[in-house]
């Protein structure tokens, strides 16, 4: 009669145990790599910085900088923005409106950057409100409004600047010295 001591069964089970360990290790390694290689999303912060830069360029000490009302006002030169960055395929967008006390435009709207961001930002906003599909790689826009004082016919009047600024920059990891 063969003596059955169940030692073979335990040795077979250890193979399955190693398989389980390998699966657990693979899960932890993959999860860690995915987590720490993901980008930190600062698009909203960047858009906010851009809108503040523009607003501070238009309004100085609570008063409207009257240079901005000139037809030949160069926003890139006056506000310290690099025009090449706001060209074709840009990761940024801005639209500026200067309004008087009657909410009428005091000059033509100024815009720059990727024009499609205006519509794309509405999709992002709807997505974050739970409407429509989830928009992960769409730009994020912020709206900034600031009141200013100006002289109209010798009297002080109040208007406001409305700036919509958007960013869709994700940053880039360089490999082998390339940019």
């Amino acid at each position, binding site marked *: 009669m063969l003596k059955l001591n169940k030692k073979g069964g335990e040795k077979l089970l250890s193979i399955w145990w190693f398989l389980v360990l390998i699966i657990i290790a693979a899960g*932890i390694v993959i999860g860690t790599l995915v987590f720490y290689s993901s980008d930190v999303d600062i698009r909203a912060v960047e858009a906010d910085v851009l809108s503040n830069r523009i607003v501070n360029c238009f309004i100085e000490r609570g008063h409207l900088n009257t240079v901005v009302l000139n037809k030949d006002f160069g926003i890139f030169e006056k506000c310290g923005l690099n025009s090449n960055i706001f060209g074709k395929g840009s990761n940024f967008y801005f639209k500026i409106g200067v309004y008087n006390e009657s909410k009428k435009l005091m000059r033509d709207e100024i815009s720059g950057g990727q024009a499609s961001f205006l519509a794309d930002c509405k999709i992002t906003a709807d997505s974050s409100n739970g409407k429509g599909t989830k928009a992960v790689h769409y730009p994020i826009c912020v709206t900034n409004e600031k009141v200013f004082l100006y002289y109209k016919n010798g009297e002080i009047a109040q208007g406001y600047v409305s700036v919509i600024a958007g960013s869709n920059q994700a940053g880039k990891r360089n490999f082998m*010295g390339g940019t």
Partner: protein
Amino acid sequence: MIKGLMIKNGLYNKKGDTVVFETVIFIVLNIIFFAALMFFVWKSASGAGVYEQTYAKQIALMIDGAKPEMTLYLDMSDGITIAQKKASKENIKNIVIIDQKNNRVIVDLSGKGQGYSFQYFSSYNIKIEPVGVLLRIIISDKKDDINAKT
């Protein structure tokens, strides 16, 4: 004599020794395995990649939020610690590069010519200098440079 009686009665078969030995080996191997996994996770968290991205974005935001004639300082002690382990002494001076032509901040802590780059939208002139563990960022108007040259 007692041992002989135990062997005769089938009570002495050393199974107790082997079970304990196998269990101890099993537990030790498991501890080594999970310790190695935790070490890997800790290494990933304190690696250069995370700091490169953080510094590049911080510096770009600081530049974009600044005005001409401003001087900014950024504490890069953590990044320098990593760079000292990975990069050569010459490369430590170049862990942060401002590419003014393409408006990019490039942070490379490994010294292998890789790193992380992030764009800024300012048109100002940017000059950076390491000051101990701090990075000094000097912002100046490009017109000042033109005037200085003439």
